[in-house]
């Protein structure tokens, strides 16, 4: 697949929430212990009337108006405004995109950006799209109780926008690998949030951190090796690893298991928390702006989480 990353932007929820604030609401919480496990002090939450769609549109509006020729819009979210219609259709109108485009949602969480890249690449390779906009946005904090010590200190609300164009030359997207284990669906779930009614269960966001950690520790290192084998590459051939920014305990474990160089294993969870499908595009944008990631670099992206689901790919940026 020959594609080029043209531009990326992002927008955080309007309310900041740090550990001191959570401590004031939950006096029995051991903030030092939470910080040592998550590595996250500051996070962003959406306002009461601010939705994932709003955050994505704000991110799209930061793209210097380069939206005229978009012919494909993919919206990655698990925080839609409605069960129907599709969020991407509303975003098409809000961003003033052409009416002659394909627009649809992908309902995935932390693996969603990689899956969207795969769809974009495939549609471009078969001449069905030439200039795509990937919007990612979620507002998980709307689902999570402020008293949930496992999940509240982790997640942030944000939107991101990525423009990808069909390209020629040596800019490659792929190969990809994917993985799914629906037996772990109960490990990260918001019950009573759609058609299935479970009156004996709470509607709050629930995460079994231990189960998700085990999934990550087993599937991510194996997936990295599988992807490198598929590309006939060694781990040293990758310039930078841009993985989903889950939390300190997850990131540290992955880096240790793969013996990754700190300078190549890029992180930013410390400053923003876990923004679900936005973590990879926000990380990429920040590292480009910082002059770390440059054109021609070989990147590995790896998203993993709710589903349970993962996806990874290699990219010539």
């Amino acid at each position: 697949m020959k594609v080029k990353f043209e531009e990326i932007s992002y927008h955080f929820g309007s309310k900041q929430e740090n550990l001191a604030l959570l401590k004031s609401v939950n006096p029995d919480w051991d903030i030092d212990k939470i910080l040592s496990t998550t590595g996250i002090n500051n996070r962003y939450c959406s306002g009461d009337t601010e939705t994932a769609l709003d955050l994505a549109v704000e991110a799209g509006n930061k793209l210097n108006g380069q939206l005229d020729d978009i012919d494909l819009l993919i919206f990655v979210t698990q925080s839609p405004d409605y069960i129907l219609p599709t969020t991407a259709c509303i975003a098409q109108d809000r961003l003033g995109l052409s009416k002659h485009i394909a627009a649809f949602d992908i309902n995935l969480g932390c693996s969603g950006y990689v899956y969207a890249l795969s769809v974009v690449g495939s549609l471009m390779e078969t001449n069905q799209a030439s200039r795509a906009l990937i919007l990612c946005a979620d507002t998980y904090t709307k689902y999570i109780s402020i008293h949930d010590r496992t999940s509240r200190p982790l997640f942030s609300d944000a939107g991101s926008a990525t423009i990808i164009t069909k390209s020629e030359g040596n800019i490659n997207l792929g190969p990809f690998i994917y993985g799914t284990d629906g037996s772990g669906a109960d490990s990260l779930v918001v019950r009573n949030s759609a058609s299935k009614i479970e009156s004996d269960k709470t509607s709050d966001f629930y995460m079994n951190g231990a189960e998700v950690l085990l999934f990550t520790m087993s599937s991510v290192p194996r997936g990295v090796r599988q992807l490198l084998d598929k590309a006939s590459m060694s781990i040293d051939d990758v310039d930078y690893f841009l993985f989903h920014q889950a939390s300190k305990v997850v990131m540290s474990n992955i880096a240790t298991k793969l013996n990754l160089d700190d300078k190549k294993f890029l992180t930013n969870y410390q400053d923003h928390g876990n923004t679900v499908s936005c973590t990879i595009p926000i990380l990429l944008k920040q590292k480009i702006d910082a002059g770390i990631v440059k054109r021609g670099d070989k990147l590995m992206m790896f998203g993993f989480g709710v589903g349970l689901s993962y996806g990874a790919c290699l990219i010539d940026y």
Partner: protein
Amino acid sequence: MKITKAALITLISDALDAEDQITGESSMDSIPEWDSLGHLSVLTSLDQATDGKASEISELGESSSVDMIFNILKNENLIDES
């Protein structure tokens, strides 16, 4: 790599940075530091001690005592009983 029960107890105690002495009977109910966050530390330490084998055992996610962990690892042939 296999570990002994004594090494397992030391591993859990270190992972939790527990003030109270950990024994075979210790559990999430009896050790204040062994909460959901503490359990993540236990799991990552177990994974390192078993060369990555522990992360393949999903039952460890629901384990809540030293004896439960010991029996799960024993069933997976990861306990050194010599």
